[in-house]
C-alpha cells in the first residue's frame, strides 16, 4: 500500500494541512491535551481519585479543590482527569474493532456482490433495526455488566456504519478504469481490493471515524449513566454525571457539570478532527 509514505513529503503535507486550517490545528491541540490527560493524568493529579473523606464532602470549587468535592469528599478534578483514560480507552477500542470488522465485511460485499452482499446487508439491517443505544443496553445486560462488554456492545452497534460506507465506496470504484488497469498489471482480486480500491475509501472513513469516536464516548457514558458497565467507585464521566445529577436540584452543580464539560470537550475535539484527518489522508488536498 504505502501510498502516503512512499510519496514526497508526508510530514510536510501534514504541516501544510495544519497551517491551512486553524480549526484543524485547534482540534489537534485539543486532542493532544486529551492524550496527555489520559496517559499522564493519573500520575499527575493532586489527589487520589478514590480516596474519600467524608468531612470534606460537597465543597464548592476552591483553590484547594479546583472542581470541588463530591458527596464522598473525593476531589472532582482528580476524578475527571483520571476518567479520561478509561473513557478514551473504551471509545478507541470500540471504534477500532468496528472499523476493522466493518471495513473487511463492507469491502467484500461491495466488491464481490452476489449473495455475500445480500447476507451482509440483511445482517447490517438487522443490527440497525434496533435503536442503537437500546441494542447496546440489551447486549451488556445479556453478557454481563463489565467494561469489556461495553466495548463489545459499542463495537457491534458501530460496525454497520463502516460496513455501509466501505461497501458504497468500493461499489462506486469497482468498474473504474484504474481498477481494471490494476488487474491488467497482474494484481489478483484481493490485491486490487486491498491495495488499490480500499485506500481510496480512507478519506470518508476518517470523517466517519471521528464522528464515531464521539458517539462511542457518549454511548459509553450513557450506558454508565443508567448503571451499566462501569460501577462505583470507578471514575468515569458518565457515572459521575449520574451521581452528580442527584445533587444538582439542591444546587451542588459542580459534581455533574465538570465531568459533563469534559465529555463535551472530548466529543467536540473528535468532531473537529474529522475534516482535518480527511484532508491529511486525501491526496487531492495536495497542491
Amino acid at each position: 500500500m504505502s501510498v502516503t509514505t512512499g510519496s514526497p513529503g508526508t510530514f510536510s503535507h501534514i504541516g501544510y494541512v495544519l497551517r491551512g486550517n486553524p480549526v484543524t490545528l485547534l482540534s489537534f491541540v485539543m486532542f493532544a491535551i486529551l492524550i496527555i490527560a489520559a496517559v499522564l493524568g493519573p500520575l499527575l493529579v493532586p489527589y487520589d481519585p478514590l480516596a474519600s473523606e467524608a468531612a470534606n464532602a460537597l465543597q464548592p470549587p476552591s483553590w484547594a479543590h479546583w472542581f470541588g468535592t463530591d458527596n464522598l469528599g473525593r476531589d472532582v478534578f482528580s476524578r475527571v482527569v483520571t476518567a479520561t483514560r478509561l473513557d478514551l480507552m473504551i471509545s478507541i477500542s470500540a471504534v477500532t474493532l468496528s472499523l476493522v470488522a466493518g471495513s473487511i465485511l463492507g469491502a467484500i460485499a461491495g466488491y464481490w456482490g452476489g449473495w455475500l452482499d445480500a447476507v451482509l446487508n440483511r445482517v447490517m439491517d438487522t443490527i440497525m433495526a434496533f435503536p442503537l443505544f437500546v441494542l447496546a443496553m440489551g447486549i451488556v445486560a445479556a453478557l454481563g455488566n463489565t467494561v469489556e462488554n461495553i466495548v463489545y456492545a459499542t463495537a457491534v452497534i458501530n460496525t454497520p456504519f463502516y460496513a455501509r460506507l466501505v461497501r458504497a465506496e468500493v461499489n462506486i470504484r469497482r468498474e473504474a478504469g484504474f481498477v481494471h488497469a490494476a488487474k491488467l498489471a497482474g494484481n489478483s482480486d484481493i490485491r486490487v481490493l486491498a491495495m488499490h480500491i480500499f485506500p481510496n475509501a480512507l478519506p470518508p472513513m476518517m470523517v466517519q471515524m471521528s464522528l464515531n469516536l464521539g458517539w462511542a464516548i457518549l454511548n459509553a457514558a450513557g450506558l454508565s449513566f443508567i448503571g451499566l458497565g462501569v460501577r462505583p467507585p470507578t471514575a468515569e464521566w458518565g457515572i459521575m454525571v449520574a451521581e452528580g445529577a442527584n445533587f444538582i436540584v439542591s444546587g451542588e452543580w459542580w459534581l455533574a457539570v465538570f465531568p459533563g464539560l469534559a465529555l463535551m470537550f472530548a466529543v467536540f475535539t473528535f468532531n473537529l478532527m474529522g475534516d482535518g484527518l480527511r484532508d491529511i489522508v486525501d491526496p487531492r488536498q495536495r497542491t
Partner: protein
Amino acid sequence: MLSVTNLAVRFQTRRGPVDALKGVSLDVASGEILGVVGESGSGKSVTAYSIMRLLEAGGQVTNGTVRYGGVDLSDPTENQMGNIRGREISMIFQNPRAALNPIRRVGDQIGDVLRRHARATRTTARAQAIKALEAVRIRDAAARVDAYPFELSGGMCQRVVIALALACDPKLLIMDEPTTGLDITTQKAVMDLVADLIRDRGMSAILITHDLGLASGYCDRIMVMRDGEVVERGTPFSLFTAPEHPYTRRLIDATPRLGAQIRELLPVEARTPLPERRVEDEPLLQVRNLIKTFPSRSGPVHAVRDVSFTINKGQTLGLVGESGCGKSTTSAMVVRLLDPTSGQIIFRGEDLAATPASRFARDPRRARIQMVFQDATDSLNPRHTSRQTIAEPLRRLGDGASDERIAELADLVGLPLPLLDRFPHQLSGGQKARVGIARAIALDPDLLILDEPTAALDVSIQAIVLNLLIDLQARLGISYLFVSHDLNVVRLLCDQVIVMQGGSIVEQGPAEQVMRNPATDYTRSLVAAAPQPPALIDAAQ
C-alpha cells in the same frame, strides 16, 4: 440585436483571482447563428453565463457591457432579469437528463415556464405544454407530457429541454454544448431540429461548442476563443480556407476530417515524417463466434451476438458503433476482464477464453495484451503518482520498476520527467493520457486495446496523442484494437474497420473503403452524421 463589448469577468478562487474573460466582444444580428468555438478553459461558457447574468457566486463582471435590443443588461433587477430569461433570451445546456427536474413531470416543468411568462394559465398550461412538445417533433406528445425525465431517452430529454427553452418564443437562443454525450445520429437529428426551428421562427442563436466541424455545419459566422480572448472571427468558409491566426490554423488542422492524413492534424512545425509501419500477414488475434449474454430482470440481454474478426501483427483494427452496440463489451472480453458466454479468443495460437477472467491476472500471458482506458481521470488511481502508476505493471509482472525503465517510458510518450512525481489531479488531460499510455506499453505488449482514448481530450491534444500512438506502433510493433464512436478519428488511424450495431457486426473491411463507400444503410447514416468542415463539403460538390 445582441451586442457584447469588451466583457471582462473575474473569478475568486482558492488560489487567487482568475481572469476568465479578458475583453470579449461579439455581435449577433437578427436571424443569424453565431458559433463560439474554443477548447476547455477558453471562456466560451462563461461568456454565455455572463450574458444571461447566471454567473456562479465566485464570478464578477469587472468590465464591459452587454446590450440586448439596445438595453444594457446590467441595469435590470434580478426580478426583471427573470422576465428576460426564457421570454427574450433562452439557454440550453449539455447533459439533458440532468437539466430536467427528476421528480417533476415534463409537462409541469414546461407549464411552470409558460405560466411564469404569462403565456398560459393553470387550466391552459397542459394543452400549451403538449403544443410545445409537438413543436420539437416528439411523437405522441399527449402521452409524453405526463412523463418523468427518467422515463425518456437522452435524445428525447434534449428535445424536452429545447421545448422548454422555446416555449415562450424567445428571440435569442444560446446553446452550450448541446450535443455532447449524444450519439452521432442523435446529434445530427437534434441539431437539424434546432436549426429548423430557429429559421422557422426567425430567431437568432449562439452555438457554443468545442467542435469546429459541428459549428461550421450550422453557423453563419464563427468566433474562435482562447484563454478568455477572441482570437479570430469569420464565416466558416473563410476560416477554413484562409485562417489568419495561428491558433485558428492549429484548431482547423487538429480537427479530424475527410481526406486529411494523420500528420496533417499537427501544426506544420511538428510534422515529422511518418515512420515505417509493417503490417504482417500473420494473424495475432482471432476472435471466433464471440457471444455475451447478460441475465436481467426483463429477460436476457444479448450484448454481443456472434462476433468474429482477425487482427494481424502490426495492424490497427477499428471498432465503431453507437452506445449500446456492444463494442465495449467485446473489447472487455478480448482484454480478458470479462468472460464470454461462448466463443474463442485465439491469441498467438492459444484460446484465451479457456482461462477464466478471475484467474487471468496471474497468467503468464497477461502482459501480452494491455489496454488504454477511456476517461483519463478515472483510469488513474487518485492516490498514486505517475511514477507509481507506471511502475505497477513493471513490479507485478515485469522485471521490477527501475528508475531507468520508468524514465525511458516517460520519454517514449513525451511525458516530462518532473511530472512523474505528481498526482492525477495535478496533471492536465493530455498529460494523464500520456501516463495511461506509458503504463499500457510498460510491459511491451503485442496487442493494445484503446477504448476511446481521446474522447475526453481537447482537439489539439487529441491530435498530439493520436500521432504519438502512430509513432509508438511503428517503433514497438504493437497491434491496435481501436474502439471509438468518432468515425473521422477511426478513418485516420485504422487499417481495417468493423461497424457494430445491436451486438452484431454490420459491416467490415478496409477503413478507407468502408468510410467512402459504405455498403449498408446503417453505416451510410453514421458517415453522413459525422460533421465535416465546409471547404471539403464544397470541394466535394
